[in-house]
């Protein structure tokens, strides 16, 4: 497969998901506060900061993925949500929840293998790069082909 998603890119995406998961923790705190009180503004403000960082990173990540795949990777929020709910909200951890998270992890792994070659960016840099060597030389040297694949 020419454009199998790289492990590095998936890890980067997972880091973003972890950061994103923190926003729902602050949202939960914000919802417990009266509208426009100091606590509301504090937690809501914190959520905005977290989402801003997430936004900057996300925009870079989706260059490399189908949007459907990148977005579904956010299901890993379940893993982080379980962690935060235990650590911060002192919810109980159950076999069911662990099994649910395991299913989601399997699902995300399978889904990440579902990106078709040449599908990721539509007309982005990767798509354009692939076409470059072709007109220069019908066959293209092995080096040229490799370079296109890397991009």
């Amino acid at each position, binding site marked *: 497969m020419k454009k199998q998603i790289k492990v590095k890119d998936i890890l980067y995406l997972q880091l973003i998901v972890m950061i994103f998961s923190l926003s*729902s923790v602050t*949202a*939960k705190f*914000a*919802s417990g506060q009266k509208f426009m009180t100091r606590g509301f503004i504090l937690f*809501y403000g914190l*959520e905005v900061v977290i*989402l801003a960082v997430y*936004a*900057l990173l*996300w*925009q870079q990540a*989706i*260059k490399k993925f*189908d*949007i*459907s*795949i990148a*977005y*579904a990777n*956010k*299901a890993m*929020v*379940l893993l982080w*949500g*379980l962690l935060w*709910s235990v650590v911060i*909200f002192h*919810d109980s951890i159950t076999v*069911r*929840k662990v*099994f*649910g*998270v*395991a*299913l*989601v*992890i*399997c*699902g*995300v*792994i*399978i*889904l*990440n*293998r*579902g*990106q*078709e070659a040449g*599908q990721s*960016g*539509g*007309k*982005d*840099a990767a798509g354009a790069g692939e076409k470059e060597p072709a007109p220069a030389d019908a066959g293209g040297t092995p080096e040229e082909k490799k370079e296109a694949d890397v991009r």
Partner: protein
Amino acid sequence: MTKFQIFLLIMICSELVASSSQMLLKKSATLHYSSWIREYLNKWVITGYFMLFVSMLLTIRGYAYADSYMNVPVCETLGYIFVMIFGRIFFGEKITRNKIIGMIFILAGILVFYT
């Protein structure tokens, strides 16, 4: 309307707005920009994040109607389905077998987790 129905309605709206915003963000990500800052300061991304902001407000409202902190992420699975459909419509992203199987596992996992 019951409290739960209001909650569902708020979350469906929130996820529709959020999914649509992803399409604008992806659109921007397929374009070339002269500078780093232009990747963010363009009509697609600004509109996209404004919509995400609206979705966030809706979700915060949703929490107020949720019986549990856990109910909100369950409803967010709707977004994965919306994005997959919208991705097919707007970017021709094929809905491959792996995507469908992966999605079934993800939805099953989330249901097992929360029920």
